[in-house]
């Protein structure tokens, strides 16, 4: 974990709504693992504003990339950062996805939840399927990048403007059934809204598979000190405990989470 002064390399729009910020992040980028996140002090917000957490979209040759959408005050200000501007970044934070599993990997993304799953796809020792859902075609990001890596991509949108119409859990169920029919084990990795994560988790438990879910909670410290971003979790012995999403997570196995 470092508190690192990063310089912006490039900061292009990838669609009208989404931007990609690339940071010179040195050792922070080198140590980053898929599923981990960074905690950014956004220059231009007033000095007493809290940091904002972002999942890591990619890390390559000391360059750390974040794919994001302006959803609030912090990200709105962040959008205007120019190349060569500097920002204070704490990271890499959190536990990250396990990379040493087995079975057909099914990545399930909701909107910009695709970001950490792309980093995962670049580092996983096997290829599989990306299932990505969004409200409209505008919310479906980075699918060509997955295809370049050799992943199959299945898209679902609520309005049917891209891929099939409906929730991403519909094609997910289909994939699960076809893997089961072929006698293939699966391992799921998912990032997106809570309702989607919960549905993915339930499907995993029902099909006796593992699903690694990336939780998204508003955070304060990002390092496990303040206890603002907690989640109730099952212990193996059946009792429960209260974990910190930032430092005990953000990745939890579906069976651990008490929804």
């Amino acid at each position, binding site marked *: *974990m*470092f*508190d690192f002064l990063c310089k912006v390399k490039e900061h292009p729009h990838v669609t009208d709504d989404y931007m990609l910020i690339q940071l010179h992040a040195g050792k922070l980028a080198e140590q980053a693992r898929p599923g981990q996140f960074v905690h950014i*002090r956004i220059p231009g917000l*007033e*000095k*007493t*504003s*809290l*940091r904002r957490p972002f999942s890591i979209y990619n890390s390559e040759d000391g360059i750390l990339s974040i794919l994001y959408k302006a959803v609030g005050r912090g990200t709105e200000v962040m959008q205007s950062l120019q190349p060569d501007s500097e920002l*204070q970044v*704490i990271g890499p934070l959190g536990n990250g996805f396990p990379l040493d599993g087995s079975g057909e990997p099914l990545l399930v993304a909701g909107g910009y939840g695709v970001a950490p799953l792309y980093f995962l796809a670049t580092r996983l020792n096997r290829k599989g399927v990306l299932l990505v859902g969004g409200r409209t075609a505008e919310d479906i990001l980075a699918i060509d990048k997955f295809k370049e890596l050799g992943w199959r991509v299945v898209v679902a949108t609520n309005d049917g403007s891209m891929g099939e119409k409906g929730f991403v859990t519909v094609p997910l169920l289909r994939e699960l059934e076809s893997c089961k029919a072929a006698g293939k084990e699966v391992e799921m990795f998912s990032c997106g809204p809570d309702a989607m994560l919960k549905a993915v988790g339930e499907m995993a438990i029902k099909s006796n598979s593992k699903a690694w879910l990336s939780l998204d*909670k*508003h955070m*304060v*410290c990002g*390092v*496990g*000190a*303040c*206890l*603002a*971003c*907690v989640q109730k979790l099952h212990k193996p012995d059946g009792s429960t405990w*209260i974990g910190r999403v930032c*430092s005990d997570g953000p990745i939890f196995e579906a069976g651990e989470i008490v929804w």
Partner: protein
Amino acid sequence: MSEVDLSVNLGGIKMNNPVTVASGTFGYGREYADLVDITQLGAVTVKGIRLEPWGGNDLPRHVEVPGGMVNAIGLQGPGVDGFVNEYMPFLLEKGVPVIVNIWGTSLEEYAEVAARLSDVEGICGLELNISCPNVKEGGNAFGTDPKTVAKLVASVRAATKLPLMPKLAPNVSDIKPFVRAAQESGADAISLINTIPAMVIDIESRTPVLSNKVGGLSGSAIHPVAVKLVWEAAQAATVPILAMGGIVAAEQAIEFMIAGATSVAVGTANFIDPSTSIAVINGIQDYLERHEMKSATELTGSIILNK
């Protein structure tokens, strides 16, 4: 080498410099140890501990507001045994003085927590949380009546020889009776201020943002309120004061010391810039050198009222 003496004695808590961190903003020290050299701090003040583990409030537990944040974490913690077994060994190995913030729901619980922590190596003082706005029982219930404060401090005093430092609530009409009650009952120091009771409402849903409905305001916004209370407390205090509330740089820490504080604690600023406490230590030293003062204690209560 600087000849300035930064060391202070906070009611028996010997600190190499006047700067600690505010309880609840620094975990148990370990969480920030990769980012901050915690051995440089005058002391580490850990998050509130009661007898048994405690789960805290439901989410949302915090909301950002201009100049700070409102929190209602609700004192989640590992209990005495959890703290001593899981967290204390790391702090002991670091060799940094540890102040433990303690709370309970009865006088007996406060006293028992104090007794159980008394012989733990590395703990150099106890901060009595009698002013947390975020738990239904305990916390603030003990801090808004001087008679209750006196009773509580006396009962904890009987249970431990460790330096005792009640943390006072800011939401009282006059702070001085609380200071007197605490010191006359055996407190070795006074700590103030805790967060200021506050509330944020989502106007679209017309519901409180925090699950606890109300919480405590911290951050820059509360600093001038804290300075006034520290200044008033200092007029009644015969024991040293640990001041906190909205320190983001050395300037606010120095202001507290001029108002009468012996030591200061960095709180919410840790979340924004974890290196704040170290910058405050360096800034106090620079200030003392610039003003040709030989020790940090010279700054305490050096306010000039009639110029």
